[in-house]
């Protein structure tokens, strides 16, 4: 990815080379796990409360079960990563099932991202608001804040902060992920030490009831549309609905597919280690801590802590109040760090996904318009930030409500991803890793493990569809809107593409190892016209009008700029002649047809356009090079650059004339290389008078020619320039220059003119 563009200020020649390189660095499995856990582990701050509100006291077992199930989902991701280095849900589903379902899957992923921000920010706000209240109480202060209202203001502020960061394109350091996870681990370790001590000091505690159908107390709200129906009495359905309410704990797994490309060699082995670290960490911090919270926080007060379960857990530890408050502050700092990070990741993620689909023509280019100052895709970011803020306001700071809605995107993107990987089992045979439990029947492989995981995810997704009213209404509405937007965008883009193509000419590329008059069927002395911008073809128009094809052929060339060193490699046709060149030459052909004159078309791949133009003019032995006026530099500067390129050519240099055409004033002509001067009329008179005087009065004789007079004059000038007369001569030259300044503006004939 390199470009080389030389630019110069008007007086000094400088060279500017821009080169862009991708500095690919590979990361260890610890770093990769930290990046994934920054997303995945953030759920531990809110999943316990959300699940218990939905299914009752056995909730921690269900969360633990979901975290154990994450090992199966890990295998799905590993299988997909083995096939696609960057195997996000969109790529996998598009490749396996097709673009329609891929659009659906990406819609659900966007729902996931849009809700990750609000739920994380609101949860962080809840922790912070409730900490302030705890601090006020410990310090015997009377003021209190409403946690929900505080959470709304806090999360709106956090969203606006990260929205602006993303608009500016200021990236948060990727290594912060590791640091945050180190701090989080300290927090988890302290909890895992302090909680058993508390239990021992209290003389033990009862484990929450097991998640059997009889223990699962699903409210009408948790059953949604299933409430009062026959299905609500089926144990299997009740368990599926319960899993559906807990599956949120796994949100963030998609990041595993995103970091795979950066995982160091041996990639798949390291991915397996990364995924195992992630799952084990998630089991401990999300699963075990949720369990400890139910064991330690008394049933009578636990509902107070649904929105800040870890905060509640700490405040119920055994120990001095100030120590607990200090640790509570630490937990809130960790929570705000990890949850606020998730808000940022959601904006970056959704921007990345939508840009990716836009590249496939599934999103209108309107959304990708870069910001004038910062260059970021601000319209996508604005839309997503507005949606996130509206979601926060609509939730009124209720984490449970957001959790209910959030589940839709999470479960459907998992289910579609698993289905994609399952389908690929039958379409492709290059899986570097296969999920376990495969049996062979009649020579055909039956992927039991993958099938069961996919089926479970789909059943949970379907159960969610009927039990989570908010999620279904929000998710389905949003998905339909997004899907329709993708569909409309795709059609509009396809139409544009079609319209675009219909008026373009088709070209065959004729590769030439050397450009010569013979290979191009252009006679020496041809007129070479350089074109670049099809909006500025005035010079071509003028050249077509003026050129007499009986005397001169016309060659129209464009320079395909290459990066330094690109010429060492074989270039593909699309690298030499892309859509732009097709459009450009289509305009050339239209103009030539209109004028009724034939032209030869030439693409010259080169690093420096000036070198390319001069080289081509020399190779073709052109009599004239015609260029349009440049918007980037003055005509004199342009002529100077072309002149310098001519000087750089190896001898013998072919002389030709340069015409710089202006749309609204006469052309500027410059002769490149040694050429007979075109004398001013008064100088011609002076020369003739001197010649007359020398031949007739001075008796030199009739053998003397005008050229001999000029030769002697030039020799004398050269001598005097090295003498004491130098200053006087320079003054005379200056005055001659000023005298003829007005005439310099007028067009001068050149050898190539007709």
């Amino acid at each position, binding site marked *: 990815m390199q470009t080389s563009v030389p630019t110069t200020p008007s007086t000094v020649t400088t060279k500017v080379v821009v080169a862009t390189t991708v500095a690919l660095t590979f990361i260890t499995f610890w770093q990769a796990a930290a990046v994934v856990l920054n997303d995945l582990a953030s759920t531990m701050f809110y999943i316990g409360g959300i699940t218990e509100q939905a299914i009752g006291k056995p909730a921690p077992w269900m969360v633990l079960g979901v975290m154990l199930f994450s090992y199966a989902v890990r295998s799905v991701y590993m299988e997909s990563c083995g096939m696609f280095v960057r195997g996000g849900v969109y790529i996998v589903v598009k490749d396996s099932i097709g673009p329609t379902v891929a659009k659906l899957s990406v819609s659900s992923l966007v729902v996931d991202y849009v809700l990750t921000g609000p739920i994380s920010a609101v949860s962080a706000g809840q922790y912070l608001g409730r900490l302030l209240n705890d601090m006020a109480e410990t310090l015997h202060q009377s003021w209190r804040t409403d946690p929900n209202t505080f959470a709304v203001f806090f999360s709106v502020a956090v969203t606006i902060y990260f929205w602006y960061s993303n608009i500016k394109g200021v990236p948060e350091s990727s*290594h912060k992920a590791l640091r945050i996870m180190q701090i989080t681990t300290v927090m988890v370790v302290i909890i895992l030490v302090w909680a058993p001590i508390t239990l021992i000091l209290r003389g033990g505690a009862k484990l929450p009831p097991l998640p059997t159908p009889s223990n699962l107390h699903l409210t009408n709200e948790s059953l949604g549309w299933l409430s009062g129906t026959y299905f609500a009495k089926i144990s299997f359905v009740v368990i599926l609905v319960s899993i559906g309410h807990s599956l949120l704990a796994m949100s963030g797994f998609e990041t595993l597919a995103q970091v795979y490309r950066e995982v160091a060699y041996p990639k798949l082995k390291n991915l397996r280690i990364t995924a195992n670290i992630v799952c084990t960490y998630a089991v401990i911090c999300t699963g075990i801590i949720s369990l400890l919270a139910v064991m330690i926080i008394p049933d009578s007060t636990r509902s107070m802590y649904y929105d800040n379960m870890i905060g509640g857990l700490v405040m119920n530890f055994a120990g001095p109040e100030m120590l607990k408050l200090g640790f509570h502050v630490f937990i809130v700092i960790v929570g705000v760090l990890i949850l606020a990070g998730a808000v940022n990741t959601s904006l970056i993620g959704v921007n990345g996904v939508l840009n990716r689909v836009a590249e496939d023509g599934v999103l209108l280019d309107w959304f990708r318009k870069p910001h004038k100052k910062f260059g970021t895709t601000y319209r996508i970011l604005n839309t997503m930030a507005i949606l996130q803020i509206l979601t926060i306001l609509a939730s009124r700071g209720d984490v449970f409500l957001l959790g209910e809605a959030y589940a839709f995107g999470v479960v459907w993107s998992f289910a579609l991803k698993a289905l994609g990987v399952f389908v690929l089992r039958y379409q492709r045979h290059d899986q570097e890793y296969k999920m376990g439990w495969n049996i062979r029947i009649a020579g055909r492989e039956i992927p039991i493990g993958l099938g069961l995981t996919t089926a479970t995810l789909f059943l949970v997704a379907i159960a969610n569809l009927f039990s989570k009213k908010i999620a279904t209404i929000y998710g389905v509405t949003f998905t339909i809107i997004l899907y329709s937007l993708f569909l409309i965008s795709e059609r509009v883009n396809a139409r544009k593409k079609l319209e675009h193509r219909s008026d373009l*000419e088709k070209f065959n590329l*004729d590769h030439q190892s050397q450009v010569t008059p013979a290979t191009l069927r252009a006679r020496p002395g041809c007129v070479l016209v350089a074109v670049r911008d099809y909006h500025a073809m005035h010079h071509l128009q003028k050249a077509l009008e003026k050129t007499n094809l009986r005397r001169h052929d016309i060659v129209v060339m464009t320079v395909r700029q290459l990066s330094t060193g690109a010429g060492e490699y074989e270039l593909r046709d699309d690298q030499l002649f892309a859509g732009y060149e097709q459009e450009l030459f289509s305009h050339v052909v239209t103009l030539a047809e209109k004028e009724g004159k034939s032209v030869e078309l*030439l693409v010259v791949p080169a690093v420096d356009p000036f070198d390319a133009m001069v080289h081509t003019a020399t190779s073709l032995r052109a009599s004239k090079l015609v260029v349009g006026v440049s918007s980037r530099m003055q005509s004199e500067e342009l002529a100077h650059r072309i002149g310098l390129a001519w000087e750089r050519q190896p001898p013998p240099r072919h002389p030709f004339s340069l015409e710089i055409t202006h749309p609204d004033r006469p052309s500027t002509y410059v002769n490149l290389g040694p050429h007979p001067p075109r004398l001013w009329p008064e100088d011609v008179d002076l020369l003739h008078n001197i010649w007359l005087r020398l031949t007739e009065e001075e008796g030199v004789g009739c053998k003397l020619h005008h050229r001999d007079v000029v030769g002697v004059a030039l020799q004398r000038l050269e001598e005097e320039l090295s003498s004491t007369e130098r200053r006087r001569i320079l003054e005379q030259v200056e005055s001659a220059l000023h005298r003829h300044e007005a005439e310099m503006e007028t067009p001068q004939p050149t050898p190539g003119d007709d």
Partner: protein
Amino acid sequence: MKLAVHVSAPISAPEVQSPELEVNVVYTRLPGAAKSLDIASGLARGLGARVTVHVAQVIPYPLGLKSPQVPVQFAEQQLLAMAGEQPVETSIRIYLCRDLTETIRQILKPDSVVIVGGRKCWWPTREHRLAAALRRDGHRVILSYAD
């Protein structure tokens, strides 16, 4: 019917001899970059050196390394406009990377003269940390403030 387009073999740029001495400018953000480039150009002009601008564009993990938040062309155009004003030979190198400090440390030659462009803040910014890391590596570092 298709029209024929002649395609010539690539034409190489003529070799231009570059000055030996190099003044490196490191940017972590584009706004305010012009000032440190001016300082570097002044320094390079006096020393008969060339300027190399290193821009490490950090891409956050959810995005692919080739899909930066700010399109490369945008950054290139801004830098080109800035560098085109300078009176000395200027090379611009943009690195799409995950880690700013590591990338810059890897690309600099030993004992380089480096100008780090940054903002004046009372707390240590990433530019301060980068400058400190480069000094530890033995480079001669000048911290230039945009304001």
